[in-house]
């Protein structure tokens, strides 16, 4: 997901990182936690995931201030069988929880080459790609799924009423060069995009929504009407059973394994997270693995595009190219983001970063 606005202002990576860290620290976040949160959010902006980067920081700050998000304490270890772990996140920041789990899982890899880690009652984790990048660059195959049981926006295939969230699947793996980074929602389109299209009064490219009566529509406003409409699963009207199936897989590995799904949902259920790491060294070996993944990626990239396309891209190609560029030239922040953050900066007495001229 990348959508760069022409009027955007550019900021240097390190200035944004320091700024976001300082805002967190002002609300009594421990410095390491504030730093991790800033790193993950800014990383999303670097890669062009503009709805799931610093765009999420104002709400995180608001939740810290209201006490919905905790900044002290540790996750509760509900179960730890080494290769299988369940944490209760105690409403700590999702960025911090996932990075902590990821780092611990990577430490365990040499002994336990496949690890599944489930976290319940986590704060918002943001975009999945920043975590995928860390794990895949370390040489691991990483799967990450999240849901929010309090968010019901996606219909079951053939259904009228929304019952599940867009339930994204993230997957990253190394090659001989840059990793491949997959981040797809199991809905026909993600919530953040609908919200943005609605505020900009644009129609969707296809009929990916249903109005409250269950009729197909391309009007993003249908999702926010009263009564609200709903998102179709990936696959659209004809193949929705496949997207629905993937959504259920995410539900099972997050809500099912954590025991906090839809029955008696606590209002503070937060994000539910499933994280899995696989070390190719325990199977074919790292070198042969990346040889094969590189060959496949190259075959795809050099294959002939269909009419209307310039070239075939692998998942993550555009995000990593943009990351490289924005790291040196500065980050194009989506125009609505800095004004929201400046309000917090004045309130908390933090100097906002200066745009690059």
């Amino acid at each position, binding site marked *: 997901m990348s959508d760069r606005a022409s009027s955007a202002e550019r900021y240097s990576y390190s200035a944004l990182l320091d700024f976001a860290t300082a805002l967190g620290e002002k609300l009594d976040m421990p410095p390491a936690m504030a730093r991790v949160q800033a790193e993950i959010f800014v990383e999303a902006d670097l890669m062009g995931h503009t709805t799931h980067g610093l765009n999420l920081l104002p709400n995180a700050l608001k939740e810290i201030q209201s006490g919905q998000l905790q900044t002290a304490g540790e996750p509760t270890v509900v179960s730890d069988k080494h290769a299988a772990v*369940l944490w209760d996140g105690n409403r700590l920041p999702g960025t911090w929880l996932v990075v902590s789990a990821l780092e611990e899982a990577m430490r365990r890899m040499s002994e336990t080459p496949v690890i599944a880690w489930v976290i319940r009652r986590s704060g918002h984790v943001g975009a999945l790609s920043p975590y995928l990048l860390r794990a895949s660059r370390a040489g691991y195959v990483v799967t990450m799924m999240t849901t929010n049981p309090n968010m019901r926006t996606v219909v*079951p295939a053939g259904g009228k*009423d929304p019952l599940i969230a867009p339930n994204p699947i993230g*997957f990253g793996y190394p090659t001989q060069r840059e990793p491949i980074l997959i981040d797809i929602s199991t809905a026909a389109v993600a919530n953040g995009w609908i919200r943005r299209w609605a505020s900009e009064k644009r129609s969707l490219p296809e009929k990916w929504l249903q109005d409250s009566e269950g009729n197909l529509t391309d009007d993003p406003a249908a999702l926010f009407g009263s009564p609200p409409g709903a998102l179709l699963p990936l696959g659209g009207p004809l193949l929705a059973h496949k997207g629905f199936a993937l959504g259920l897989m995410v539900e*099972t590995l997050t809500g099912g394994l954590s025991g906090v799904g839809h029955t008696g949902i606590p209002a503070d259920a937060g994000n539910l997270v499933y994280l899995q790491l696989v070390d190719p060294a325990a*199977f*074919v070996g790292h070198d*042969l693995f990346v040889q094969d993944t590189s060959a496949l990626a190259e075959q795809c990239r050099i294959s002939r595009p*269909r009419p209307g396309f310039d070239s075939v891209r692998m*998942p993550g190609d555009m995000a990593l190219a943009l990351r490289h560029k924005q790291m040196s030239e500065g980050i194009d922040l989506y125009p609505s983001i800095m004004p929201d953050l400046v309000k917090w900066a004045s309130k908390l007495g933090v100097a906002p970063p200066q745009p690059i001229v």
Partner: protein
Amino acid sequence: MTRFDYSALHDFATNLAVKLKLPGDRAEIQSDVLLEADLMGHTTHGLALLPGLLGGLESSAIRVSGEPEVLSDKGSAVMWDADRLPGTWLMTRAIREARARLTQHPVMTIVIKRITHIAALGAYLRQATDHGLIILIMNSDPSMRTVTPAGGAQPQLAANPLAFGYPTNGDPILIDISSSAVANGWVRRWAAEGKHLPGQWLLDAQGNPTDDPNALFGNPRGAMLPLGGLDMGHKGFALGLIVEVMTAGLSGLGRADGLSGDAGTPVFIQLIDPAAFAGGEALKREAGWLADACRATSPRPGVSKVRMPGDTALASRKAQLKDGVALYPTIMPELKKWADKLGVSIPGQLAA
């Protein structure tokens, strides 16, 4: 539709394979798995595959005896080389092995390379869900290129299916989807029957979208779009890559080798014991609640009711176990050729 008694069909399928030197226990399991697919209504991946498998036994493309070679065993992560052992039997054996290790290793992963045809992925899921376990199976075929990358005109991947099963406090949920817009078997059947596809799920050889199934078999041949079709194909392509990486990538049986079809395929099997997380009861409660909520929701206009993955298959299974198996009409004539050749008697049809 002609119906046959389940156990008569099972004996028939087993006898045919045994005549071609497949050991009895392996032939029984092969019949279990193939017939499970027919019972569930996956009529392209049940006994419809038996003639091909018998051909493989006859030509020794399938190795009837011996065990898989253990290439790596880290307790929770295992890799086998099947060297063309029978797919249905070895899959069943791997799932049993994973189940046996779950108390010690609650997340068990087995990757197998060079396995012969494993038939319907969905037919194995109950081997885990009946024990309260979660199962994920993926399979690819590095010798087959039928599905394009998103935005591409040339096919690079196979239909790369993914199956996922989990228990509830009612019937299990059984998912079996290909990461292409449509599976090969269906395109072939629609072409044979002169029908159009329900959507523009193919590209012709020039890369233009089409709903003509013959485009896939022309010369030069066309290709299948990934799930998500023209607009959201990047998601189906991503899914195809996940399957490719977990199977071909982890096993080292990938496209870098330029394999022929006889070399078998790679498969990824993972079992998860919910007891190591919030517990089996919590999983069944959550999964059961969501399944019931989905079934109870009102359908959108034009749809009669909302079904969970596996609902139709399990209802079909139950009905066919009782009333007889309604074999797809093209299947028995093909099997009859083998029965005549091998001197095996054909099961009688049930009275209509």
